């Protein structure tokens, strides 16, 4: 967990932004806030919480982060929820429901005193969503924070989860198009990145070079990189296909780097498939990185000529934000939150096929001036829209709003 104070960000975002946050937070001083998710490491949610929680504390809110303790069968079930909510075929049996509810109920025994007394409870994604049923004596406001696109879910899974989610006082989505209609207020908060974290901070060139050397990557050749979990929705095989189309005409290298998360049991199978496809290729590097390899990822992104995120489904796509922050043009799948970040022909390109990705890769490799311009625009865009200070401000606004029934306009202090 980071230990920086909000003041550390003043050089990046300016004094006015920091002062604004402190004024807002003053109205919430001492409020007890509990975040709950299902993994401490790996994936975008854990990354967000690792800075959000300490900064909320720095702002005077009494904030904690709890993690659901689960076993393999529970995580298989919640992965099925995850896939089903994003529209994939997914099973939901009575046994799965029992495993899910029993696991969350067992966690509730440990968490109930804290959750029941909190002023604000923020439950991230479906894994801990059942907690609300285990805490009938609730003092504060409970919010379900959905980080994935649930606009076209598997209906059996959604019917089950909808009954749980409807119990919350409000729900949050990353984009309006991710939301399902519910009877409670549905709010929109886009995710963000921490510009000072190991994943995003400036790095010495020597460190970047050493990272490339460590993996045997040729520093003289252009580097194309996709950083993401080994997950079918990230389409790693589609990226290799795009690289294959391209590699006849241009000398370049491809890196597919990522790792697993504790709550993703499918990762190993996908990694095996990707490794098999790339076997014997000296220009493709498949890097299975540990969850704390943040500086390595940072170095790979900074060393890249172009960053790819060719997802077929995507919640938001924080790796896109990270690349843009490092002034890299991004070739992204035309889905989900990537569309919010990659503005076609301005900060990168949106593509629907491996052929589209190959076409744009060639364009950016052949025109380094264009790639540079796109990268600079991308950095500016992230500075205004997707840094943690904006994210924090919206959480504070939400909590103040919840205290007053989410009226259209309210005066605080």
């Amino acid at each position, binding site marked *: 967990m980071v230990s920086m104070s909000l003041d550390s960000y003043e050089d990046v975002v300016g004094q006015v932004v920091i002062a604004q946050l402190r*004024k*807002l937070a003053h109205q919430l001083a001492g409020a007890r806030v509990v975040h709950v998710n299902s993994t401490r490491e790996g994936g975008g949610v854990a990354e967000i919480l690792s800075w959000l929680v300490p900064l909320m504390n720095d702002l005077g809110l009494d904030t904690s982060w709890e993690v659901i303790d689960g076993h393999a069968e529970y995580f298989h079930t919640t992965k099925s929820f995850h896939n089903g909510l994003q529209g994939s075929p997914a099973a939901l049996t009575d046994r799965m429901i029992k495993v899910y509810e029993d696991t969350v109920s067992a966690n509730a025994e440990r968490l109930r005193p804290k959750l029941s007394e909190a002023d604000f409870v923020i439950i991230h994604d479906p894994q801990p969503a059942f907690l609300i049923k285990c805490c009938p004596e609730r003092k504060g406001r409970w919010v379900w924070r959905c980080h994935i696109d649930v606009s076209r879910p598997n209906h059996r899974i959604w019917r089950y989860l909808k009954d749980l989610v409807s119990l919350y006082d409000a729900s949050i989505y990353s984009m*309006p198009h991710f939301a399902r209609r519910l009877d409670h*207020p549905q709010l*929109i*908060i886009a995710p963000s990145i921490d510009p000072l974290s190991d994943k995003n901070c400036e790095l010495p060139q020597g460190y970047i070079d050493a990272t490339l050397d460590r993996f045997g990557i040729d520093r003289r050749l252009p580097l194309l990189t996709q950083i993401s979990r080994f997950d079918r929705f990230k389409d790693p095989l589609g990226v290799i296909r795009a690289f294959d189309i391209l590699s006849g005409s241009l000398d370049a290298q491809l890196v597919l780097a990522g790792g697993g998360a504790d709550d993703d049991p499918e990762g190993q199978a996908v990694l095996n498939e990707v490794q098999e496809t790339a076997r014997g290729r000296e220009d493709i590097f498949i890097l299975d990185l540990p969850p704390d390899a943040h500086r390595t990822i940072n170095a790979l992104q900074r060393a890249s000529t172009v960053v790819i995120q060719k997802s077929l489904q995507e919640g938001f796509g924080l790796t896109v934000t990270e690349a843009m922050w490092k002034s890299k043009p991004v070739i992204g799948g035309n889905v989900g939150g990537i569309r919010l970040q990659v503005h076609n022909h301005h900060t990168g390109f949106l593509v629907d096929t491996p052929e589209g990705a190959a076409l744009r890769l060639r364009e950016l490799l052949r025109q380094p001036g264009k790639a540079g311009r796109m990268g600079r625009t991308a950095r500016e865009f992230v500075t205004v829209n997707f840094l943690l200070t904006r994210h924090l401000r919206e959480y*504070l606004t939400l909590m103040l709003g919840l205290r007053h029934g*989410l009226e*259209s306009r309210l005066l605080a202090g």
Partner: protein
Amino acid sequence: MVWKTEKVNMPFEVKDCTLITRMGGVQAAVSLRELREGVARCPLECLFHHFCETQLRPTFDDPEFSNDFAVWAAKHVRDRILAERLGVINPYEFDNLEQLREVVLEVVDDRLSEVGHHQFAPAGEDFRFMRAVTVVFDVGIQLRTPDDLVTRLPQFSTSSIYYHFVEARRRTETRLDDFSNWLAGFGAGTEPLLDALHGIDFYYLTLRELKDALLEAVCQPFMETAHG
């Protein structure tokens, strides 16, 4: 530097605002017909959000149109005629938001009668009706004289500029900005400054551009007074 004003005035309390958007509770629109139905039924806060609070939302580049309905018509329905007709509507010209709603409906109805009911946005590009929860808070700064406005204005956040210069027109009886209302209390000495403020066509500016325009408007008469 002391302004040549005839009166003393109440201090100006600097405020700021922040918003979070929420779904408007109206069915998303895929076609012009559905857009019309949504505009007819949506809470007035939705109209305010899509016409006025767009300025508070960070944007990637200067949007071609200032309201979300026009942007959707141009970008997703690809009907530039409708987009231009919607884009020229200035929400601050109306006494209330019901009047604004009537005008938007007229424009969409006219277009529907011209093109029939065949205008659709592609899948996934439907119009989502949104509204906002806005929190207004005290910045802890008081301005006592027009000089204070000159010295403090560079430190205003763009959302504070929005609150005092744009949003004020919706909540004040005069339908003027907060700066003008306050400066008027100082009497004739502030007339050049008031004229400069009234000359700013704020609706078509981004908040950053608006802040620059305000700085120019506020500093110019100050410099003239200082040297005059």
